[in-house]
């Protein structure tokens, strides 16, 4: 079989239709002139500079209060007044109890996207226009809605918000779009190393049989239909489990009126709250790897579940542990992994409280070479927290940072509102936040060590790494089991044998299988020459190519656009020639080599003769079918050939040409004199769009005009 090869010349040409190829940038920066020598002017009164100034008396941090009331239907309303700026925000938090979505994982999220897309009397277009026209903001999620506006539109905006929640409509046409968007967003997520690490660490920390560990996948997304989404809405969107948080330029009586007018009609309903076994830490240390070939960094997360109730002293002290371990610039993780070792731009920890189950995490992105060293430092720091507990200097900084962060929060009504919501939602003591800083202040070294020992367990944790597969093996030593577990981007275990090279096949067998599939090696190699005519369309113009190859190592190819020959390439007797628009192009040695590799009818014949250059790499899916992959290390660089695992016909070739990766797909095999040739080809990576070519004729053993091989 014949490989079609569009040399670089064509590539440049195709791109050249619409643009000048950008020239390499030249440096034109005016170098800054060296500054005149600056005499170190004597600075008077130096003494005061030598030491830090004394602070004034500490300001009092006074947390603002909030109003709380309940509507008859059970909706809890919270008001945080702040009249500094003429603006208002509304958050509707629907406390959907965590539940397993199973085959429909992601349904609640899709509901969130559907909510803003129609009401009984408005289309999405009308909602968008109404919101944008007044410069407001209205977004919805699987847990409610958020809206903000300047004060003068506060009525309009709460009205819109209540309508999208209470009068929601679910048109099929919008659902199709929502699903399409979700599909794109998910595809996007599973290429982002941060997002992959987040998904997989949740799945491993909580388990995929816990609501916190469940992940939406392309499969679950496919199975969600509109009825599923509607039932999430009907089951869980009820006022008696919801909170309306109003913040900003509003008076209590006004807030009460707005809430009552717009949310009283919402009907109360009981919601079942499922229970789940609490996820546990692993017995030892597990090492879990997600392969992302080509990554230049490894995303490391060390994570395990913790039992930490919100609103407790333990949760406040856990915050202090987190500060000392991995929050500030001089916290232990940052000092070690960034300021001392320079493995990373940043290494942090986080501890989250939650009435069901919380989590401990420590994480960083590090360059590939130091992945195992960085994991070792993480484990070292987690262990050290027990061996060398947070000391008094560290604790003082942790306390100061916590108090400082509280002080800065006063400026943000949204932060105050989140404290208020936590207070009512978790049913905390009304004084919990006002007295928070006292608990911080009174926490002793012992208190903090106790919480640290409980939460940070270096011997019982999960290490999750997303990165290039080459870094995985070195991580096995951290695992109690001595082995690395592999996962896919959805947190599902991957059986590595599936992608490993099939043990019962050799490269030679694959190549012979291929010849058998196209009609027999002997018959194929008996062909003296093959001439193909191909046709396709590029930017509205007809592209045609004639391509002739011979069994004695010659080739000739002419490419025409709309009848004009734009490229002519030949190889014969060790010489190569390429002309573009009639002009000869100077060829680097690599290009000559590449052309020589094309001057053959079936490259597989050469592969069989040089089996030491051919490796069977494994299997991979091509167009939904399993294909066996051979890597051929030729003079023109590595080429990957893909053969259908069942039929053994060649389905794809991938080769690199400079910075470009060119992919050729073959299909529509039809016999010509008993040998199968592909009659349909798709080339990607050559132009900004795929080029589809169909064979209009394939002829073998014809009388060739010797002129077509003439080299000037």
């Amino acid at each position, binding site marked *: 079989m014949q490989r079609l090869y569009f040399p670089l010349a064509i590539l440049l040409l195709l791109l050249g239709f619409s643009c000048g190829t950008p020239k390499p940038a030249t440096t034109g920066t005016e170098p800054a002139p060296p500054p005149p020598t600056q005499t170190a002017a004597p*600075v008077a*009164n130096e003494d005061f500079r030598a030491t830090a100034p004394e602070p004034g008396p500490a300001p009092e941090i006074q947390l603002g209060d909030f109003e709380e009331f309940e509507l008859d239907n059970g909706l809890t309303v919270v008001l945080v007044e702040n009249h500094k700026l003429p603006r208002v925000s509304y958050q509707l938090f629907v406390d959907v109890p965590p539940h397993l979505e199973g085959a429909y994982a992601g349904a609640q999220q899709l509901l969130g996207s559907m909510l803003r897309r129609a009401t009984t009397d408005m289309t999405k277009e009308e909602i968008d226009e109404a919101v*944008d*026209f007044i410069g407001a903001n209205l977004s919805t999620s699987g847990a409610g809605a958020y809206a903000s506006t300047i004060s003068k539109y506060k009525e309009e905006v709460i009205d819109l918000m209540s309508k999208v929640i209470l009068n929601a409509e679910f048109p099929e046409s919008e659902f199709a779009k929502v699903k399409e968007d979700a599909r794109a967003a998910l595809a996007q997520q599973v290429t982002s190393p941060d997002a992959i690490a987040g998904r997989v660490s949740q799945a491993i920390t909580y388990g995929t049989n816990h609501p916190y560990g469940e992940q939406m996948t392309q499969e679950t997304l496919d199975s969600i239909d509109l009825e599923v989404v509607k039932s999430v809405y009907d089951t869980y969107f009820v006022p008696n489990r919801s909170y309306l948080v109003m913040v900003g330029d509003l008076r209590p009586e006004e807030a009460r009126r707005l809430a009552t007018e717009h949310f009283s009609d919402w009907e109360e309903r009981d919601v079942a709250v499922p229970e789940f076994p609490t996820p546990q830490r692993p017995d030892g240390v597990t090492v879990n790897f997600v392969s992302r070939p080509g*990554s230049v960094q490894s995303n490391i997360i060390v994570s395990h579940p913790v039992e930490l109730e919100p609103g407790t002293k333990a949760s406040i002290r856990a915050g202090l542990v987190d500060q000392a371990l991995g929050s500030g610039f001089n916290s232990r993780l940052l000092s070690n992994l960034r300021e001392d070792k320079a493995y990373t731009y940043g290494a942090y920890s986080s501890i989250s409280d939650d009435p069901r189950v919380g989590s401990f995490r420590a994480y960083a992105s590090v360059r590939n070479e130091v992945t195992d060293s960085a994991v070792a430092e993480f484990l070292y720091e987690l262990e050290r927290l027990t061996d060398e507990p947070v000391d008094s200097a560290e604790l003082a*900084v942790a306390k100061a940072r916590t108090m*400082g962060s509280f002080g*800065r929060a006063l400026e943000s009504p949204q932060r105050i509102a989140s404290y208020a919501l936590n207070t009512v939602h978790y049913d905390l003591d009304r004084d919990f936040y006002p007295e928070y800083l006292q608990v911080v202040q009174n926490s002793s070294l012992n208190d903090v060590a106790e919480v640290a020992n409980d939460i940070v367990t270096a011997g019982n944790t999960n290490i999750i790494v997303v990165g290039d597969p080459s870094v995985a093996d070195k991580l096995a030593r951290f695992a109690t089991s001595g082995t690395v577990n592999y996962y896919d981007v959805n947190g599902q275990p991957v059986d590595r044998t599936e992608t490993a090279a099939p043990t019962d096949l050799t490269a030679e067998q694959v190549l012979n299988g291929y010849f058998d599939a196209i009609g027999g090696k002997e018959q194929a190699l008996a062909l003296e020459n093959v001439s193909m005519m191909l046709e396709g369309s590029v930017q509205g113009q007809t592209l045609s190519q004639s391509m002739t190859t011979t069994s004695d190592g010659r080739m000739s190819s002419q490419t025409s656009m709309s009848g004009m020959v734009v490229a002519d390439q030949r190889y014969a007797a060790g010489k190569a020639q390429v002309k573009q628009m009639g002009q000869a192009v100077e060829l680097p040695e690599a290009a000559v080599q590449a052309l020589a590799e094309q001057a053959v009818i079936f490259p597989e014949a050469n592969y069989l003769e040089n089996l030491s250059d051919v490796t069977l790499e494994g299997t991979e899916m091509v167009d939904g079918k399993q294909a066996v992959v051979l890597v051929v290390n030729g003079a023109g660089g590595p080429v990957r050939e893909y053969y259908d695992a069942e039929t053994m016909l060649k389905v794809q070739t991938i080769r690199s040409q400079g910075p470009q990766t060119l992919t050729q797909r073959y299909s529509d095999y039809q016999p010509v004199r008993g040998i199968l040739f592909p009659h349909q080809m798709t080339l990607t990576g050559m132009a900004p769009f*795929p080029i589809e070519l169909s064979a209009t004729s394939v002829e073998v053993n014809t009388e060739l005009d010797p002129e077509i091989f003439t080299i000037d």
Partner: protein
Amino acid sequence: MHALNRWLLLLCFLVGLSVVAVAQSTTIDFVEYELDNGLKVILHQDNTTPIVAVSIMYEVGGKDSFEDRTGFAHFFEHLLFEGSENLERGAIDDYVEGAGGALNANTSLDRTYYYEILPSNQLALGLWIESERLLHAKVQNVGVETQRDVVKEERRQRYDNQPYGTLTMELYKRAFKEHPYKDPNIGYMEDLTSAEEADFKRFYETYYVPNNAILSIAGDINVEETKELVAKYFADIPRGPEPPRVDVVEPPLGGEIRDTVYDQVPLPALVMGYRTVARSNPDYYAISMLNQVLSQGQSSRLNKALVDEKELAVQVGSFPSSSQDPGLAIAYALTPPGTEDLRPVEEAFQAEIERLQNDLITDREFQKLRNQIEVSAISGYGSVAGIAESLANNEMFLGDANLINTETDRYLAVTKEDIRRVAREYYTDDNRVLLYWLPQPSSR
């Protein structure tokens, strides 16, 4: 140059006052003065919350790097956390965090910005640290070597290992051939590797002088006391020579540049950069509003046409350039997975541009823009740190800190005809770089 700025400043103050008198939105009061050594000082008092933002902005950024030292300004920003004559390595973080403060810095192509947000009783601490940084910062070799690797990791984490992470780099390196905007703000890896100690000394002495900086303080302060503290810590720092400025004027693009970029991304994208104007150019306002018409909110034209109606894209965005020298206004469209042909989305985008060039926007759209501008003016007053930065930015790049109060009027002066005019003038094919951003064909 300085004299001219000052004169403009006065004029704007007068204009500003008259407008503020009729506008009902909140006004940010501030005092502004200059020390003898050229340091500009801006103070805004707001005693609502017991915190203070102390910030200093230097007029040096990515574009001011020396030859073969791209990314130097940002690298240098990292080094200026290392310490000074009186601050040991790591002490800056210790002092600020130990006082319950937050601190950080960032570097754009045009300026470098350092700040501390402190409990208001620690104002002097912020001033002390910033004066140390300006007067006699100390960079040791261990710091250089550490930060060199840290910055390289920053580059990998934020650009190289992120889908679409190199988008602006790929646009700017094609759109500029002379002006240093052609180089990435974070720097090329090889330049980060070769930066040496002499470079740092030269850079510090050239740009870290009081006459190249604005000290902007906002929050729970007393103006008179603060003036005294500022004088104590900064007045005797010697003025430096005037720093050199980039005066390269990039010639017109001279024809569309089209190219393809392959990346580890699932969604093919259409990415465009139009060469536009400097932030201080009066056309900035019309271009900014044109971008609002295109992509602000779900009812905007690109969202409506490309995402909702034609379903050619799943996400669109556009924004003006706001750099000191003329930069690129960027627009992009991410297409659904599996999209093989980007031409339809390009045509649909082009149709929206042509509509802006041929017809005036509607009265309702125009009113919508003006309503949105009113809202964004108010939301800019949310935090003292944000206010300190806005004041410094306005002073440094527009020569008028008071634009925090008055710039809205410049937007409101833009007409529908202005928007059509800038669409015609800047959004032409000849003036753009257009990239097809494609998924790297899987090669294992």
